[in-house]
C-alpha cells in the first residue's frame, strides 16, 4: 500500500513537533515559502490534486480563483467538520499527524495570500481539538507558524473553531456563516466564497485531507504525486471503510486501485462468508452500488462516475446479504431529515417527508404508490435547493429503491388503488397493510447477484 500521506502517522511521538520535524514535517512549507504564491498554486495545479471533501474540485484551480483587491483580506478555512456518514478519515489525520494538517493549512494560506486561517472542527471532535491546539502552540512557539513563518516575511495566524454538531456546518457556505457566528444557513451562489466568503472577503474552503495532501505534494514535488494514481485522479486517497467488513478502518490507497481487491485484501472481506449486497463508495450522499456494479470498478473519480456514483469523501459503507435495505435507507433518510438546516423549502420539507413515508412503509402502514411518491419527492428536491444537502438526500433514496426494488415493493400494499377520500383527510391510518414488517424486510438475495464471497 502507498503511504504518501500516512508515512509517519503511526510513528510514536508524531504528534510532537520535535519528532515530526525529524521526519520532515514543515519541509513542504519551507519549500513553498521560497517560491512565489503563483508558483505554489501552479505546483498544486500540476499535481492534479482534487478536493477530498466530496466534490473533487481541482484544488489548484480553486486557489487560482482568489483575486484580492486592494484592502481586502483573504481567508483560508480548513473544513474539519467531517460529518458525512461513513466518513472518519480527517479525524485520523488530525489526531495522529496534526503537524501535517497545520503545514497544509499554512501552505494553502500562503498560496492564496491569507494571513488568517481557521480550522473549523466538528464539535464532537473535542479530543482532537486538544491535540491540534497543542501542535499549533508548539509550532507557533517554534516560529514555524505565526508572524514570520520559518523566518520568512509571511505572517499567518491559525485559529481553531469548534462546531456544535451540525452536518450543515460542513457545507462550505454554512461553515462560513457558522464561523461568522450566525445560524449555519448556506448562502445562495453566486457569489461564490472566492468572491464573497468569510466576512464577505475572498475565501477558500478546503478539506483536511486536501490540505494535508498539499503539504506532502510541496515536500515531494508534484511529480511524485502524479506518478501515483490515474490520469484524472492523481495520488492517493484515504478510504474509511465500515459496515460488513472484517477490518473496518482507514486505509490509504492509490487512486485506480480495484475496489474488490480493496475489499478483499485491505478490508479483510465480508465476515462469516456472507455475500456482498451493496457498497456506498463515498459517504451516504452518493448513490449505492450493487455488488454487480461494484465488481469492475476501481477507486478513483472517473471509474466511480462511470457507474453513476461518486468517490465523494471516501467514506465507504459495505452491506452484506443480510442487510435489510429499507431499514438501512430509513436510517440514512432520517439522518438527512434531521440534518437539513431547514432554510430552503424543498429540502426542509422533502427530507422529512421521505423519512416519514419510509417510516410508515416499514411500520407496515404503507400505501399503494408510496414508492412512486418517494421517487417523485426526490425529483422535486433535486436541483432546486440552495446547497448540496438536498441533492445528497435524494441519492440514497433513489438508488436504493431503483437497485433493490423488490425489497421495497414487498413493503408496499399491493395493487388496489384507493379512492382519494380514503387516503386523504381522515387522520392517521392505523391499520396494517401489506405483509408483516419482519417478513417483508428480511431480505432475499437479489436474483442473479454474483457470488462474491470475499
Amino acid at each position: 500500500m502507498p503511504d504518501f500521506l500516512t508515512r509517519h502517522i503511526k510513528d510514536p511521538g508524531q504528534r510532537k513537533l520535535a519528532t515530526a520535524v525529524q521526519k520532515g514535517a514543515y519541509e513542504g512549507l519551507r519549500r513553498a515559502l521560497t517560491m512565489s504564491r503563483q508558483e505554489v498554486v501552479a505546483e498544486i495545479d500540476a499535481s492534479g490534486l482534487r478536493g477530498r471533501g466530496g466534490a473533487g474540485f481541482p484544488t489548484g484551480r480553486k486557489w487560482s480563483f482568489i483575486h484580492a483587491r486592494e484592502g481586502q483580506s483573504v481567508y483560508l478555512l480548513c473544513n474539519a467538520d467531517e460529518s458525512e456518514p461513513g466518513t472518519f478519515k480527517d479525524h485520523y489525520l488530525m489526531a495522529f499527524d496534526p503537524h501535517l494538517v497545520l503545514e497544509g493549512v499554512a501552505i494553502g494560506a500562503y498560496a492564496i495570500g491569507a494571513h488568517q486561517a481557521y480550522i473549523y472542527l466538528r464539535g464532537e471532535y473535542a479530543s482532537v481539538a486538544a491535540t491540534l491546539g497543542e501542535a499549533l502552540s508548539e509550532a507557533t512557539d517554534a516560529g514555524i507558524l505565526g508572524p514570520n513563518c520559518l523566518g520568512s516575511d509571511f505572517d499567518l495566524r491559525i485559529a481553531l473553531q469548534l462546531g456544535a454538531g451540525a452536518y450543515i456546518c460542513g457545507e462550505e457556505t454554512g461553515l462560513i456563516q457558522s464561523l461568522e457566528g450566525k445560524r449555519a444557513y448556506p448562502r445562495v451562489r453566486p457569489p461564490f466564497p472566492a468572491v464573497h466568503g468569510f466576512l464577505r472577503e475572498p475565501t477558500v474552503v478546503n478539506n483536511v485531507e486536501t490540505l494535508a495532501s498539499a503539504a506532502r505534494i510541496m515536500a515531494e514535488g508534484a511529480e511524485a504525486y502524479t506518478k501515483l494514481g490515474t490520469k484524472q485522479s492523481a495520488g492517493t486517497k484515504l478510504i474509511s471503510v465500515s459496515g460488513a467488513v472484517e477490518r473496518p478502518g482507514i486505509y490509504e490507497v492509490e487512486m485506480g486501485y480495484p475496489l474488490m481487491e480493496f475489499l478483499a485484501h485491505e478490508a479483510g472481506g465480508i465476515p462469516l462468508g456472507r455475500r456482498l449486497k451493496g457498497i456506498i463508495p463515498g459517504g451516504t450522499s452518493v448513490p449505492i452500488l450493487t455488488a454487480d456494479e461494484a465488481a469492475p470498478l476501481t477507486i478513483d473519480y472517473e471509474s466511480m462516475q462511470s457507474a453513476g456514483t461518486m468517490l465523494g469523501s471516501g467514506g465507504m459503507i459495505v452491506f452484506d446479504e443480510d442487510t435489510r435495505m429499507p431499514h438501512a435507507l430509513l436510517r440514512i433518510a432520517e439522518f438527512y431529515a434531521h440534518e437539513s438546516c431547514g432554510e430552503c423549502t424543498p429540502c426542509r420539507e422533502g427530507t422529512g417527508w421521505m423519512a416519514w413515508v419510509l417510516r410508515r412503509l416499514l411500520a407496515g402502514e404503507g400505501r399503494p404508490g408510496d414508492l412512486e411518491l418517494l421517487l417523485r419527492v426526490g425529483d422535486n428536491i433535486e436541483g432546486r435547493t440552495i446547497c448540496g444537502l438536498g441533492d445528497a438526500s435524494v441519492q440514497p433514496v433513489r438508488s436504493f429503491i431503483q437497485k433493490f426494488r423488490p425489497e421495497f415493493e414487498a413493503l408496499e400494499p399491493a395493487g388496489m388503488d384507493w379512492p382519494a377520500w380514503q387516503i386523504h383527510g381522515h387522520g392517521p391510518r392505523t391499520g396494517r397493510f401489506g405483509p408483516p414488517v419482519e417478513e417483508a424486510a428480511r431480505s432475499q438475495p437479489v436474483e442473479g447477484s454474483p457470488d462474491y464471497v470475499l
Partner: protein
Amino acid sequence: MPIVTIDGRQIEVEPGTSVIQAADLLGVEIPRFCYHPDLEPEGNCRMCLVDVEGFPKPVVACATPVVDGMVVKTPHASPLASRAVKGVLEFLLVNHPIDCPICDKAGECSLQDFYMHPDYGQHPSQVNPGEKVHKRKRVDLGPRIVLDAERCVMCSRCVRFSENVTGYKELQFIRRGNHVELVSFQERALQDPYAGNFADICPVGALLSRDFRFKRRVWKLDYTDSICAGCSTGCNLRIDHFDGRIERLIPRRNPDVNRSWLCDEGRLSYKTLDVAPRVKHPQQDGEEADWVEVAAAADSRLRSATLGRELPLGALASASGTNETLWLFRRYVEAAFPQHLLEFRLARETEAVRERQDKLLRRVDKHPNTMGALHLGFTAGMGLEGLVDEAEAGRLGALLLLYYPPLVGEDSEETKERIVRLLQLVPESVVLTTHHLPYLAAAKILLPVAAWSEEEGTYTNYQGTVQHASRAVASPSAARPAAEVIGDLMRHATYGRPETEPGRVFAEIADRVPAFRGLRYNELASRLATAYPPEGRMPYGQDGFTGR
C-alpha cells in the same frame, strides 16, 4: 444596458437587476414568498424558480442577476419551471395546517393564492392531517403581533426586516429541518416600534396584527388610498374600512417616502380619532346651532370684533389641514380682514419638520403639512406663543382657529395652556375642529370639521412632495370638510362664491403658488405611491401589502 426576454417579451434593465425585478417591470408574475422589493434577497423559498435558456436546471429569479441576451421562461410559459414551482408549493403545504377558514390572512395569503393558480398549484394532497409536524399556534409577541408558528413558511422576510431594516434583531429561527420554528429573542415581546410591518410582510398568516386579528375577513373591506397624517414624513398608506368604520391602515409602497413601511403609531393613528368625543353639531355660545345661521354669525362676529375696533384678527390654522384648506383659510383671512396675523405654528413645527425621530421613518414634527403651510405663504411668524402675547397686550380683536388634535402623540401641556389662555383673552373666537377637547371649551363658536380620513385633499411632506389622500369614511353628523366651512365663511364675507371642491382649489393653487406649479390634481394619486410592480397591480397580493 442588458436586454432580457421573459416569456417572449423584451425589456431593457439597469445592470444588476434581478430576473424577478425585470419580470415585475414587465408585469409578468413570478410567484414568490421570500423576495420583497425592500429587503435583501435571500433565495430560500425557491418559489420563484424559472427556466433560463442555457442553464441545466431551474434558477431562482430573485437571486439571479439579468445578463444581456438572457431568455427566461416563467411557469406560465415553461412546463419545466411550472413543474419545479408546483413541487415547491406542494412541499410548502406538506406541514402547513391549512386553517384558512379561521386564518386572518385568508383572502390575501400568498400561499392560498398561489395554490389556486393552475400554473403553480392545485395538486391533490398526499398528506394526512395527522402526519403533519405541529408547532405553536398562538405565540404572544407583544402588543402588536401574534405568531402562529405552524403557518410560517420560513421565508425569513420578518427576520431580515428585524435585522436589516429596523436593526432590532428580535426574530430568529430555531431547530432544524421541518421543525424549524420562528421565535423572538428570548421569547420576549417585540420592542420594535415598527412591529406592525411584520403582519404586512409575512406572506402567510403566521405573523398577525393583534389589532386586526378576528376583526373582519379581508374580502369584506373597502380600500382607500391615503397619506398618514401622523407626522411630517407623510407615509403612503391604505385605509381599509368596512361599513364606514376604519378597520386597519396598511402601507402602500413608495420607494421615495416610506418604502413599504409604516410606524406603529401611524398605523394605529386611526384609533386616536375615537379618543375624545367628536363635535357633531356647530355650537354658538354653548348652544347647538345650524350651519346656515352659525356660518353667518361666525363671520359677522369676527368682523365686528376686529374691523369695528380697529384690531387685528388672530388667525391660526394648524399644519394638519390639507393644502386646500390652508389655502382657503389664508384667502379668507386676507380678503375679509385688512388687519390680520396669519399664523400656523403651535410650537416648533418649522424647526422640527425635517428632524428625524429615528433612523427609519418617524419625524419629530407631528404635523403632516408643515411644508405645505410654508409653501402656501404661511410664515414662521409669531406662532401661538406670539398670539398669546398680543392678546395679553390687548392687541387682538378676535381669534379664528383651525385646530386638529394630533393623530400621533399629543400637543404639549404648554401648547394646550396657551390655547386656553388665548381663548380666555380674546373677546370673540371661532374654532374649527374635530373633537370636544377641554382646552377648546372656551371657544365662542365651535364649528365641527371632518377629521383625517373623512376628507379629500393634499399634504406636502417634509421633502416637499405633494401627496394626495382620498376620503375613506364619512364624518359624524354635521361635521363638514374644513374647506367647505371656510367657503361658507367666505360667502358671508361677500367674497364671492369660492370653489371648495379639492380638485378645483388645487388647480387654483397650482396656478398661483410657485411650489405647486405644473402639478395636476388627478395625476397626483398615480404619480405617488408607485404601484408595485409599476405596471398594474400584482394580482396575487404576494408583496404582502397590495392586498387582493
